[in-house]
């Protein structure tokens, strides 16, 4: 049994169980804080903070950064930043319990690790860009949005997954 576990690191939870717990967590989050989960907002706050540290003049003149800069509280002082920190720690805990912690680049055997990293970087760039336009990512806009039945949540989910299916053919070599 132990040996089988060591050879196969992909023993994950039943997806329905994971989804059920995730749903309960969203309920709990709404019940406590009045808003849902999110991830891209934390990254945005970090970017605003870093830019503001490096060049305060620039961040004040830029129309987008200046939205998130208020005199009294730093943008880093953001609910989502603490949540994002927690996500990393929670993932670390789960990884430790299942022996999945290791430095690795996961990629299809058909492509090189280098290609995978380049595509990951480009994908992250696009995702970060798109998440800013749509005011949230898959967790912030789609998941929490649908929980509240926000129209934007349904639009985000349908466009993200719809586009995904449309372009899947062009990226097939990276994955299958």
């Amino acid at each position: 049994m132990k040996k089988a576990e060591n050879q196969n690191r992909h023993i994950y939870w039943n997806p329905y169980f994971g989804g059920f717990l995730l749903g309960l967590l969203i309920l709990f989050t709404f019940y406590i804080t009045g808003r849902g989960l999110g991830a891209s907002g934390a990254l945005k706050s970090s970017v605003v903070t870093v830019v503001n540290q490096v060049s305060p003049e620039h961040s004040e003149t830029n129309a987008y950064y200046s939205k998130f800069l208020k005199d009294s509280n730093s943008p880093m002082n953001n609910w989502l930043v603490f949540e994002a920190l927690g996500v990393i720690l929670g993932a670390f805990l789960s990884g430790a319990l299942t022996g999945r912690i290791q430095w690795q680049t996961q990629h299809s055997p058909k492509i090189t690790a280098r290609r995978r990293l380049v595509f990951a970087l480009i994908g992250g760039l696009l995702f970060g860009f798109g998440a800013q336009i749509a005011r949230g990512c898959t967790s912030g806009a789609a998941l929490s949005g649908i929980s509240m039945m926000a129209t934007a949540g349904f639009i985000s989910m349908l466009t993200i997954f719809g586009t995904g299916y449309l372009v899947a053919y062009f990226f097939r070599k990276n994955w299958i």
Partner: protein
Amino acid sequence: MQEELFISGRNIPKIDPSLEVWHFPISLYLFLGGMAAGIIFFASLFTILGKENKVQTAIKPAMIIVLFALSIGLIALFYDLTHKLYVWRLYTTIRVESPMSWGAWVLLFVTVASFLWVFSYFSELFPKWSIKTGWLKSFERYLINHRKQLAIILLPLSIILGIYTGILLSAFNARPLWNNAILGPLFLVSGLSTGAACIILFSRDHIERKLFSKIDLALIIIELALIAHMLMGMYAGSAVQLEALDILIRGEYTVMFFVFVIILGLIFPALLESIELLGFKVPVVIPALLILIGGLLFRMVMIEAGQLTRYLY
């Protein structure tokens, strides 16, 4: 010329409670002092028990860390002094009733004794630089033969050093947050646990790491219990204590205290260490570093939050 007339004795800089006169260097010093005390405690304890071979990191490399920690701590302390040139005056007197006098003297003895300790291991630590000078060599041999006696002196001194960092604060009876009897033991336990974390961080020996993980886990549990008791004690206290408690549990320092000290500095690393002891693989650096950072932040929170509280109104 503009004359000012003070009617009350309040809110006059440097006269009535001159608030926030202790800054970051003090917290750094308290942290490093506590950590050094912890390492010295373990090194001397295991030497007295005759189990030096099992804790090679604690008695050798970690003791060098102690020297650095004490030196940096003393520099930080000196840097924060207002009248730097009068520092020698601490050593012209011994006052039994003053924790600062105790601390100054204990610190002096501990530093000297730690230097002697590291010197006794000099040949083992740096085999290439053998000591040539005759009297130095015989001095080293004398120290090697008397290591156990040195440990017997260092063990109580380290406990005093560790506990004094807390007593120093709790002796301020004008600061309600500090003025409780638990602070001394709490800082001692916290110092011991950061010392153990430091040993884990530098240890290459699996058995030693496991031993100190166990010790650290027990210490963290004690520390959490002491923190709970400290908060309960304040909760049962008078209005000023309640106000001090509010800073920690529903005020300015709540996030720092609960997120970075309690959750990230104590509970999370304790969880990681316990699942590691259960046989799961955890990169040991993570809990050790979290404990060290948590220990430093704990001092910072206590120092800064403590200076917001006072009896006078």
